[in-house]
């Protein structure tokens, strides 16, 4: 059973999004368009914030593959979000090297600061957070990333987390 938010709200792909899809498909040999699946799912997620079943079905239709082929990929890779998150999803590296330099303290701090547990959304819909495995920035820990651009924030301290959240709040209100 898919652990996907149950919604049947239909989605429409814009002309611009379809142009991105076409560019991706052009990178592979004739008949191998399924190779574009992961990049296209990233594009869809960047556009809609998460991957709903109707969105995945539409991707399957576009790539001329079965919907199950999309579901099995979307549920395998951790970057694909199968339920809505806050506008800003803070993903904090929780693996060994980052923990050695205080990642767990930063996760505790973010939980207190935002007032929501891992995986929950703040009442204003702005923030979610979760621990993720190694982000390949072990020398600059603790680190977190924020999609869809996957901007990295390194050498985190409670003060820099305060600044980041404040900046994101200001950005959202503009």
């Amino acid at each position, binding site marked *: 059973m898919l652990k996907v938010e149950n919604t049947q709200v239909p989605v429409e792909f814009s002309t611009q999004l379809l142009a991105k899809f076409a560019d991706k498909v052009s990178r592979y*040999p004739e008949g191998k368009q*399924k190779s574009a699946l*992961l990049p296209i799912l*990233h594009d869809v997620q960047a556009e809609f914030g998460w991957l709903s079943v109707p969105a995945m079905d539409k991707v399957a239709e576009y790539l001329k593959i079965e919907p199950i082929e999309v579901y099995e990929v979307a549920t*395998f*890779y951790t970057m694909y979000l199968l339920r809505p998150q806050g506008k800003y999803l803070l993903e904090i590296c929780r693996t060994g090297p980052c923990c050695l330099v205080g990642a767990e303290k930063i996760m505790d701090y973010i939980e207190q600061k935002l007032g929501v547990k891992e995986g929950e959304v703040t009442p204003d819909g702005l923030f979610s957070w979760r621990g993720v*495995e190694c982000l*390949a920035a*072990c020398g600059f820990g603790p680190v977190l990333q924020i999609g869809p651009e996957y901007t990295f924030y390194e050498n985190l301290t409670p003060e820099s987390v305060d600044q980041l959240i404040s900046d994101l709040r200001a950005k959202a209100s503009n």
Partner: protein
Amino acid sequence: MGRKLLLEHINVPGINTFDVYRSKGGYASVEKALKTLTPDEVVEEVKKSGLRGRGGAGFPTGMKWSFLAKPEGVPRYLVCNGDESEPGTFKDRYLMTYIPHLLIEGMIISSFALGANTSYIYLRGEMMPQIRILEKAIAEAKAAGFLGKNILGTGYDLELYVQPGGGAYICGEETALIESLEGKRGNPRIKPPFPAIAGLYNCPTVVNNVESIAATVPIIRDGGDEYAKIGIGRSTGTKLISAGGNVKKPGVYEIDLGLPVEEFLYSDEYCGGIANGKRLKAVVAGGSSVPILPANLFMKTVNGEGRLMSYESLADGGFVSGTMMGSGGFIAFDEDACIVRNTWNFTRFYHHESCGQCSPCREGTGWMEKVLHRLEYGHGKMSDIDLLVDVSKKIEGNTICPLGDAAAWPVASAIRHFRDEFEWHVTDAATAVTRNYGLAGYADPLVIAEKAG
């Protein structure tokens, strides 16, 4: 001062752009390869260089290339493995961020040597900034005539694309990477057939690490024999080491292979010693999957010889008293670091990242994580320690891909070298838990209740 073959120009302003990279001698190796050498001669230079795969396995790159099947009328592919996700390793991200054209130049040389006309750089999806950097650099190289049709008028064609993954450590395994590049789950394939015979789209394919591909640039520029003069024994050339954990100066360093570990760890040119005046307790020398070594065994082999940063020296003593170079992901642990907690943390990583295809890995990593969790949080039994050793042995060597070994080795080696610390977590659970509780983001509710009295 160590020599720099890959990072020589990394601090030059604008080196991420084609024009500045070119002004520093960039793409001269492409010109040399395409205009003066045959593909077989390029392969021969790489063989002569002694370059070993920099992703972790350390297999000779030139030999790997020479295994590539060359049937008529069938495309061949080069795929760059940029799915860097091994805890402790961050050298490829650094290289691609600051000097992307070095990788692109290496991709052109390597693709030419292998007869590939379409090549892919597979990057872990979280590296979206690096994907944008590489795509911009590819566009610049193409505009300058170094990619596309009839490169430099030599008749050689090459298209180069960047492919994002979806956030799965297993895609660093070459056949899982190929599955992912084909738009599927990253489940490793049973080998043989090896990718050199049947890889991407069932065609002959070579998968090489970012650093290996970048290293072809100085190899072609200076010649394979010159490259082989650097280093020691079968560990030739330079190597990027990413240093993290409790060192004073974390970062990415290029070293000549054969550098004494003491110099790497304590000299100001590299790590600068252990942070906060603490003593060194243990080292993971090549990424989280290689065996952990206590400080004394890391500094000297059992024969009392000074350990060197080379494939052979680090492996001296086998897994009893040695370790591996791996990917060069160097993690130092100071005297306050808790080996049990770190082992639990690493095991959680491997449990999370197991693709689930093989039962020993899928079930075994979860089992180890549970046992380590109860040891870490003060509910362990003395028999749990031998249980962990037993489970790790049942995973090792019994899976399709090396992720099972990678999960087993940290556990087995931590118990081998730090058994007393595991026992202390059982006999003095309250003290052990209290010591680590302040660091715990995910404290066990039972422990919280106990602490609350």
